[in-house]
């Protein structure tokens, strides 16, 4: 029963990812795509969590953490790139 539910959840996550993918491909502006990417990663996090329940292991919890950090950093980086044109700014006084 619980496996059934988890699988259903996985399918729903997949559908969410597919929708986000559509936004990435079509999305008229870059911010659209960045947000869609963030959404995909969040869904991936949830998917991996569900999978590790399915596989009955705790080994993938670090993966979830890593993905969370990566999603955050990359979203920040992309936003900064859109905003300023560079990601790492040089020091002025050189």
């Amino acid at each position, binding site marked *: 029963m619980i496996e059934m539910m988890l699988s259903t959840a*996985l399918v729903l996550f*997949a559908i969410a990812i597919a929708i986000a993918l559509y936004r*990435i491909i079509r999305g008229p502006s870059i911010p659209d795509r960045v947000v869609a990417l963030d959404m995909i990663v969040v869904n*991936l996090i949830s*998917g*991996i969590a569900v*999978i*590790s329940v399915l*596989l009955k*292991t705790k*080994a*993938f919890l*670090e*993966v979830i953490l*890593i*993905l969370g950090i*990566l999603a955050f950093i*990359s979203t920040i*980086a992309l936003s900064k790139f859109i905003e300023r044109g560079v990601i790492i700014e040089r020091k002025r006084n050189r």
Partner: protein
Amino acid sequence: MSLLHFAIIAPLLFACFIPFLFKRLNLIHTGWFVLGLSIILFIYFLRFLPDIQHGGIQETVNWIPSLGINFTAYVDGLGLLFALLITGIGSLVSLYSIYYLSKEKEDLGSFYVYLLMFMGAMLGVVLSDNLIVLYTFWELTSFSSFLLIGYWYHKKRSRYGAQKSMLITVFGGLAMLGGFLLLYLMTGSFSIREIISIADGIYGDPLFIPALILVLFGAFTKSAQFPFHIWLPDAMEAPTPVSAYLHSATMVKAGIYLVARLSPVFAEHGLWLWLVAGFGIFTLAWGSFNAVKQTDLKAILAFSTVSQLGLIMSLLGIGAAALHYDYLDDNLYMAATFAAVFHLINHATFKGSLFMVAGIVDHETGTRDIRRLGGLMQIMPVTFTIALIGTFSMAGLPPFNGFLSKEMFLAAMVNVLSLDIFNMETWSALFPVLAWVGSVFTFVYSMMLLFKTFTGTYQPEKLEKNPHEAPVGMLVSPIILGALVIVFGLFPNILSTSIIEPAANAISPALIDAGQSFSTHISFWHGLTPELYMTIGIVIVGAFLYVTLPKWERIYGLFPKKLALNHLYDQSLIRAESGSLSVTNSYMNGSIRTYMIYIFVSMVGILSFSIIQKNAFAFTTDGLAPMGLYEVVLGVIIAGASITILVAKSRLTSIIALGAIGYTVALFFVLFRAPDLVLTQLVIETISVALFLLAFYHLPKINRKEERMGFKLTNALVAAGVGVIVTVIAFSALSNRKFESIAQYYIENTAEKAGGLNMVNVILVDFRGFDTMFEIAVLGIAALGIYGMIKLRLSRREDT
């Protein structure tokens, strides 16, 4: 190390001191030291004369005993004869060179170093019993000859001649090495004497004929036999003492020596007789025919050397027939060997003196062209006398030594008519005819050499210098050689018992019992024999041809230039060069795409060939895990992303698709339960996508067109081939699993022996920590490399 070994390498050792003598004692001409050494060596080798009457003397020094390569010096009649020639003529040539080469203008240090190198190498060739040592010294002679020919390296012709002789003789030398190795394979020994002692056993060996031909290649190239004689005339660019020493008396006889030395091994076979005698006799005729055409004194002498070497070679070939007749009562063919050795000595004497004469004429008049020379008889009477003795001896006139050996040569050639082995009877008539024709032309060019230089009209306006008689020192060596010509001519028997007999015995050791039967041959020169009539015919026809020379000279123009061997040689060099250039250009086109195609095509080719060859393809589904829905979905995603990369219009899409593949692979790792891999893969994929984006962002604005990757059929085929072959191999490997994996050991021992629970990490840092260390090194190198590439800009041509 015995005294004999020291004697052999003494010139090489002494060569090390020459530069000091040249630099420090520059008041004395360096040649005097060399002269001293060669005279000492000559006297040393003379002392062997009584010993070699009863077999040879052998001394061994170990060099590489584990391979059977030892520096075994062996002195018998043949080796001693050559050693005496080398040191004797060597002394005379050093003496001559002292007066020939100027102390002020020439680089004497190099000259005498090369000359001593050559002398030592040549002594090594003739006195080594070990084939490999012989080969070593053989190459050293080629090498020092190259240096000597190119002595005046600022002249283009010198460099050309040196290169040509190097190419041809080294080609032959390498072939000879092959022959030696085959001999070793057949007999298991590098020692010539051991090989001779078991030579009967290898007669029928399949390697016997290849060995024979390869050894003959070496001998023919070194001894300037047809068609390899072409290097010798070009080697005349060397200083005249070198030409006299190397290219008449010693080095070109190394091939003769080799043939004589290995006769006991090979001469049983008819091919040996045919090749040696046939090429020899043809070289004789061809060389003497071409000598008449030349106008340069040294060129005439060069072709004459070619022809005389052919004579000796053909005599050695005929001498091989002696092995086939056991009855020694009237051994006609042994006389041929005897004649070969005798003429070898004679040729060294008269040719050496003639070269020195040519050098004197060149030195005193400034030219060697016989069209500009003439009437020098009154001006240079001594030189004329020497030249007369030399040329008459060369032409084979009494009372000089050339007459005796020429008679014996003709006698041997007439005796060929009675040979009844190896189908000889069909063609044997060719031998006396060619010999006679060759001798006629020999007579013609000898007369040309003498009379065109020294008689006729004196043309001082055509000469660069005011000619006068040469200095005494320069004349000493040719006078000694000329005197020897006469002495050997009048008293040939002083040579015959002392040296020729032991030498002939060494060439045919199987017939050694009948030693006394050929010692009588040399006194046979009285009497009305067919060869005497042939000699009279040679003189009459030769004199007629010489007088009418201007009338028939034009036939040399008839011979097409395109077929000339020199033309062939030059063309083949040019062709080889341009051919290899075009071959290289055709496949090394500088495009990495092409090289990748080569790599992949050969990979697919080799792999598929070996799979088909070994019938290795296998496909079973035993032991495969069931496939779940998730794997299928992820596989579809990866396939879709891969296709997206191929067909994407923008590079950005490709980069993102690549990222998608990386992340999906991470998901695969999740499914296949590899948490450490997932972590690493996610982080690395993120970073590398970021780096790709960085590279993409910095693409130049110009030429930045968004377009699809073009379609190329070859690329598609190659890519498909690689994919298919790798898949096939993966299937086959999986279906052919033969052994259990060793993973069980790690599972059992990770916690127990290494004290960890994470097996992947324990393997990385404990069981197989070495790999990790070097991967850390790789990352460090990559980081430093990137830093270096960004920071270090040595050339600032384009930026700033």
